């Protein structure tokens, strides 16, 4: 039984990180109809900037246990790059999806060089800070407390976004804009400001995701592409543009990956994309997506 929980938690932890990035991707597509491949780059930037911020904070005398708030704040601050990127993407909102994909893929490659320029070519790690919060042990079951905190943070963010979209005035306007941009504009909604805000929020989700995962992993130049491969499986399964889809898709991908690694380690990617193919055939719009007319 403890083994089952170990494997389950491994899958949920992976899903928690995937959700944050996929949520950003969904939010941006839902409102702006842009498939933003650069979401993987925001994730990587968050990881690298998180390491720099924590090292700076520790150097300034902050106690090691404060590294988690530092990571979250660094991810939020890094969201400041969102408006600049959105301003660039604004030039192609009306263009064909192929242009959008090309531009956002160009951003992925450019950000890779930005990372190389500022942090060098080698993977960066945060040492043993993840052990700072200890472990939760119940009998033979043991889990890193930090992993639980990341899962909790991800759930909180999911609940927070849900409440924000459903219960706030801004959320209602945002959903209305996603449904009908022209009508919103006609009713006086500042769509440009709305787009900038949504894109920045999407960016923050990615950068916070990267910052949160780095104490348990490492920041590397390959991060953006590797993550995008899985994030797209999440949005295809969940349905492009659906936040609920991001949550369910991330859970399916995380748990499928955990099951595959446990029983047939070689079939990790195959198992995930098998689900993608089944969903594409049986429900092309994804589990929670709206059929495209």
């Amino acid at each position, binding site marked *: 039984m403890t*083994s*089952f929980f*170990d*494997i389950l*938690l*491994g*899958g949920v*932890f*992976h899903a928690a*990180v995937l959700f944050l990035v996929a949520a950003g991707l969904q939010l941006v597509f839902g409102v702006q109809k842009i498939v933003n491949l650069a979401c993987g780059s925001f994730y990587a930037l968050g990881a690298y900037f998180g390491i720099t911020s924590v090292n700076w904070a520790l150097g300034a005398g902050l106690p090691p246990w404060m590294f988690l708030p530092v990571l979250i704040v660094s991810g939020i601050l890094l969201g400041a790059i969102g408006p600049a990127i959105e301003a660039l993407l604004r030039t192609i909102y009306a263009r064909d999806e192929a242009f959008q994909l090309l531009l956002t893929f160009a951003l992925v490659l450019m950000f890779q060089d930005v990372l*190389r320029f500022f942090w*060098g*070519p*080698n*993977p960066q*790690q945060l*040492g*043993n800070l*993840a*052990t700072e919060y200890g*472990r939760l*042990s119940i009998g*033979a*079951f*043991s*889990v*890193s407390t*930090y*992993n639980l905190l990341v899962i909790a943070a991800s759930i909180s963010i999911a609940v927070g976004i849900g409440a924000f979209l459903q219960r706030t005035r801004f959320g209602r306007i945002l959903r209305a804009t996603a449904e009908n941009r022209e009508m919103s504009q006609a009713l006086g909604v500042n769509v440009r400001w709305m787009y900038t805000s949504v894109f920045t929020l999407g960016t923050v989700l990615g950068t916070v995701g990267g910052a949160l*995962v780095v104490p*348990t*992993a*490492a920041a*590397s*130049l*390959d*991060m953006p592409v*590797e993550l995008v491969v899985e994030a797209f499986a999440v949005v295809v399964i969940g349905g492009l543009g659906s936040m609920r889809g991001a949550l369910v898709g991330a859970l399916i991908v995380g748990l499928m*990956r*955990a099951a595959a*690694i*446990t029983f047939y*380690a*070689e079939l990790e990617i195959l198992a995930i994309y098998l689900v993608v193919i089944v969903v594409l055939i049986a429900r092309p719009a994804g589990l929670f997506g709206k059929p495209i007319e």
Partner: protein
Amino acid sequence: MQNKRRTLLKAIGGAGATVAAQPYLSFPAIAQNTPVRVGIIAPKSGIVGTIGECGLRGTQFAVERINAAGGIAGRKVELIVEEETNPKDSIERLRKLVLQDKVDCVQGIVSSGVSLAMGAVAEEMKALLIFWDGTTQDGVKETMPNARYVFRSTDNECEAVMASLLAIKYWKGQFATVAGINPDYSYGRNNMAAFQALLKKFKVDARVVAEQWPKVGTLDLTTHVAALKAAKPDLVFSSLLFADLPIFMRTAHGAGLMDGKTKFVFPGAGFQHTLLKKEFTPEGMIFGHNTLYFASADASPLQRLFVKQYEEKYKDYPHWEADRAYFAMQVYKAGVEAAQKAKNAWPGKEDVISAMEGVKIESLGGPGHMRKDHIAEQTFYQGLTTHKNRYDFATLGQVDRMYSDQLQKPTGTDFWKWIETAQIKL
């Protein structure tokens, strides 16, 4: 940046060459005036970037010493450094070094994926090439049994063979189930298979209960660790050796995999030794340092000097890639000087190659020699980890030392047959 590096390396060569070359004054003037040009191809980025960097530092140490002592047979050494990336691009850089830069010798290469492809090209070009850590094996099968221009490092499986022998020596009878987590390419697969073959040879009846094959560069190993823990193995064998190793150790510690009596065998952990902090690296695990254990109690004065300078200069401690690079440079130097002595004139490439066959040298980590079939033999170090040291990472308490003629197949032998039939001492 590239030019700056080259300028720097040339400066190193020049500074060393200012020291008098008294024993070589009888050489022809042309030989003394032109430097020996050595091309280096080493990784500078990605998951093996730090490994290439450590190797380059070993080469620079070797060149500084060689030039300070008068150079190679009276000629100073000049380095031209290129980056090792994928096989195709790395081979282009080999061509550039040989055809454009007109180097006398090329050294380097960490990845066997690159060296396997590059070896054949070097033979075709008749370019003298000495690998630091790459082999010309396809899996465990030698593809260039009669290489003329290519000299390669020890078999990749040496460290797995030694770690397996130590596991049997220390723990035979104490484990009945084993699990593996190894990188998903030929190195990881062959190491795990070699471990199992040696268990069979020494009649250790252990059942494999889990095998994990994460891709190189997998940075989230939470589920892999959970799967290992679920299998409840008595012993875990892992050839992880890049940035994924510290991540595995941290994750395994967090999941409680290291709390019980499970034994751990890590043949290639030395690449990451300074990142394996005491907080999450247990004592008593088998830990491989390959051909250089920086803290060896009976280290030679040469190794002590290197480690001291390395620590002062880079605030770090070297691993085995520095030794491999140093070994390659010394083998070349010894070959040139032996050929020069025999010929009493500056030797040609063919003379140098013949002289390198069988040459013995003292490397940073200990004695080594280049076999007649162009495969290196070196001294290997592994042992059991301890926390009783002045560092924040684990070192070796019990140190075992073996020469690679006990760890790798002899000339022309099949690896698996050799394991079955060899008289291997525990």
